[in-house]
């Protein structure tokens, strides 16, 4: 494929995450997501035995994969991959078969019973269009989330990825996830 003009991605500096859930609420408001669902979610883990303890927190959401399994299985093309790398669901085309949910290795999607369609994080495309950052990125008190264009070597994102070590989740799923977790 020809070089894309844009490749939106997110870097997560988990060490800075304080599990405050601002991102979760911001997304709910921004995208009018009803209470029963959430586009982003928090991974929380506390390990150890008193008093030798450690805790780790990290946000997660749709990984906007390069080879999205959800898009592959979608029978109607409602789920599709934009040229800028964002995977979106076109609500109008979605029949609500939930095949994409089953195919997503990250369980990043949910079924809106009220609308009969599937929904997930879309990097707040409508905000990007206005020149705003995704809601969860903008609101984060400790700026755990860094959003940007992978193809732009000058972006903070590219800089972090070249300076720091990182990993992606479930690389073996082969979907090419685009949320990078700094180590």
């Amino acid at each position, binding site marked *: 494929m020809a070089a894309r*003009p*844009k490749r939106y991605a997110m870097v997560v*500096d988990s*060490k*800075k995450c*304080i*599990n*405050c*859930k*601002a991102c*979760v*609420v*911001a997304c*709910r*408001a*921004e995208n009018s997501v009803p*209470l029963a669902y959430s586009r982003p979610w928090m991974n929380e883990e*506390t390990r*150890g*035995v*008193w*008093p030798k*303890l*450690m*805790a*780790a*927190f990290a946000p997660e959401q749709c990984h906007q994969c390069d080879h999205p399994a959800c898009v592959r299985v979608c029978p109607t093309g409602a789920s*599709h991959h*934009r*040229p*800028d790398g964002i995977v*979106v669901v*076109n*609500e*109008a085309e979605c029949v609500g078969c939930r095949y994409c949910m089953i195919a997503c290795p990250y369980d990043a999607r949910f079924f809106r019973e009220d609308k009969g369609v599937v929904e997930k994080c*879309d990097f707040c*495309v*409508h905000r*990007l*269009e*206005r*020149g*705003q*950052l995704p*809601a969860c990125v*903008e*609101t*984060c*008190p*400790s*700026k755990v989330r860094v*959003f*940007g*264009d992978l193809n*732009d070597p*000058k*972006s*903070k*994102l590219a800089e972090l990825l070249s300076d720091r070590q990182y990993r992606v989740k479930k690389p073996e799923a082969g979907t090419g996830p685009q949320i990078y977790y700094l180590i």
Partner: protein
Amino acid sequence: MDRRKFLRFSAGGAAGAAIGASLAYMKPFSHSPEKEAGRLEVPTTCEACVNKCSVIAVVENGTIHKLNPNPENPKSRGMLCARGNAGLQQVYSPARLKRPLIRVGGRGEGNWRPASWDEAFDFAAKKLSETKDKYGPQGTLWSSSESFQEVFFRNLGAAFGSPNQVRHPTLCLASVNLAYSLTFGTVPSFDLLNSKYIIMSGANRLESFITPDTMDLIESAEYRKAKLIYLDPRFTVTASKADEWYPIRPGTDLAFLLAMLNVIVGENRYDKEFVANYTVGFDKLTEHVKAFSPDWAEKETEIPAKDIVRIAREFSDAAPRAVYYAGRRSSWYREDFHTRRAQAILNAIVGSWDREGGMVPNGKIALGEYLFLPWDDPIAPRVDEMDKNFPLAAKGDGAYLKLRENVIAGTPYPVKAWMIHKQDPMNALPGQARTLEMLQQMDFVGVVDVQMSDTAWYADVVFPESTYLERTDPVEVLSGIAPVVVYRQQVVKPVHDTKTTLEITQGLAKRLGLSQYFDFTMDQWVAAQVKELPLEAPLEYLKKHGVYVPPGFPKYGTTLNPDHRFITKSGKIELYSDRLQEANYDPLPVYHAPAQPPPGKFRIITGRRAYFTQANTTNNPWLNQFAPENSLWLNAAAADSLGIADGDRVEMTSTVGAVRLKTRVTQEIRPDCVFMLHGYGKKSKWQRLVAGTGGCDSELLETAWDKVSGNAALHETFVSVRKV
């Protein structure tokens, strides 16, 4: 999502590229509000907690769609926490107060009759006047917590002639404020961003947000490689990010501090020049701390002596970029004041004063004042007898718990009417049964709130205030190392039949014959305030930006001049305090070992989570989802020995109450402590999500206060836990 836009966006490579080009990299994610039909962006100020972060409210077709952070404010930076984001619910929640209410039936039975504002004002004014006739104006009590319009409410109380105003500091930070004031003549801020060594005693900054400290701490601890030493009986989020976390034995922080002083003084590690130029009483301090060896402190605190020594050395090496952080809520123990004094002294002798990375006196911005007629000072003394009980404390704020004792006892005189503004004493005060007693002995209780709080539940009249997104407030200066001016402007018109505090005050004042003191509009008030700002059109500026950041801050070193007079008795930093001595308190911090829970009992401690504010946001559905019910943190080993499993229901009993809730058996707390979240087990049935759900800590906490400041001591209660 806007369908048209979506199509435009997804129309393939070409369109994607075009939009890409218009976005041009990430930096330009600095967005300029463009005109979109039906869409407005209104800068304003958050009031979901004490921090007053700057917000940009996005209004779409007359409804607030989203609250975004306003990056122009250097205190809140570009952040809005979970509560700030959930502020929308205050406006649109069906559970909010929508019109004035007058109680029918008994207090707490929950029967209300909607009333017109005229009726509500008439009724309250009549009751207040009756009380005044019978008991004098001192028979009324006016209590409030911090807010931009609190001033109007307080002024009404003062104009009415009551000496009895009581505010939240004696539930919160009175001891720390008094300790720093008596030492430095002011309460400084802490330059966490530039610090290299930070010690915190249970200041849970990464869950209890203070701007900009919370963000600074994360930045300095994770990026700038500052060292964070954290002391807390619980494994909090802050503990998890600290370089070293010590689960200190509760109530013994002073022993740790004294041992640090012992090492630093004993090893000549203090800043000699600074001590000589700016402080008094160092020789007395030297003698005083000799007795407090690290080995002794190890026994008290359970922190290894070698660590105390090492930390003391590292701390003094890092000074002046080293701080023992003051903390905010210091409503902990009876001896709290002395613990905070010891911190202040420690910070002073290593010279971390008014320097980058140390403590910095707050910058100041002058605001203008709207001039109104003066009223006479109240004649009667305060009912909490501050002069006698807490001679050094801030009189205007009162001492809540002593006040409650006196009101219930009717000494020195009866207090029979209680006006409450933006405060929920039923939850905020320990010993809920006593608060209820105090409420019940009132002839009249009026509450100004935005939701049916537990206190409102027992009131006679409830005045619904417009929420912070529906009103314009006075301008405020947020002090700090870099002080700013913030403005709260109306984002949407009130959705229901509600009024602002000013309007409520005016409504009452009119009926109490006090109108002459409140004869102005909010606009006039604000205009007078902003007149002094060095801006051409200050109001327009604030309306557009929501915040004004004066140039020239941070300023370091303004007081670093041996001739500088500190606002203390000696004009110096008082390591040894004559004023304490004169008032019969320990002039240097003396350690009194706290009582420890007898076997089978636990000390109950309290604190916050990042997504709740005090007791008052647990009914917000967007936040409640993170903890629909509170549970009792119980150490796994302790639970084992009691035969209690995770999720079991238990009954906790103290000398003043008993509550039942589920357990959270965990490794994350000391075996001698238990912990629960605040704001559950509500009495107010209108707080549907938390009414009768979980347990209410205020029912359990015994009444105790710090001896010097009168601050509540919320960690002095021992409870037994039994499976039910």
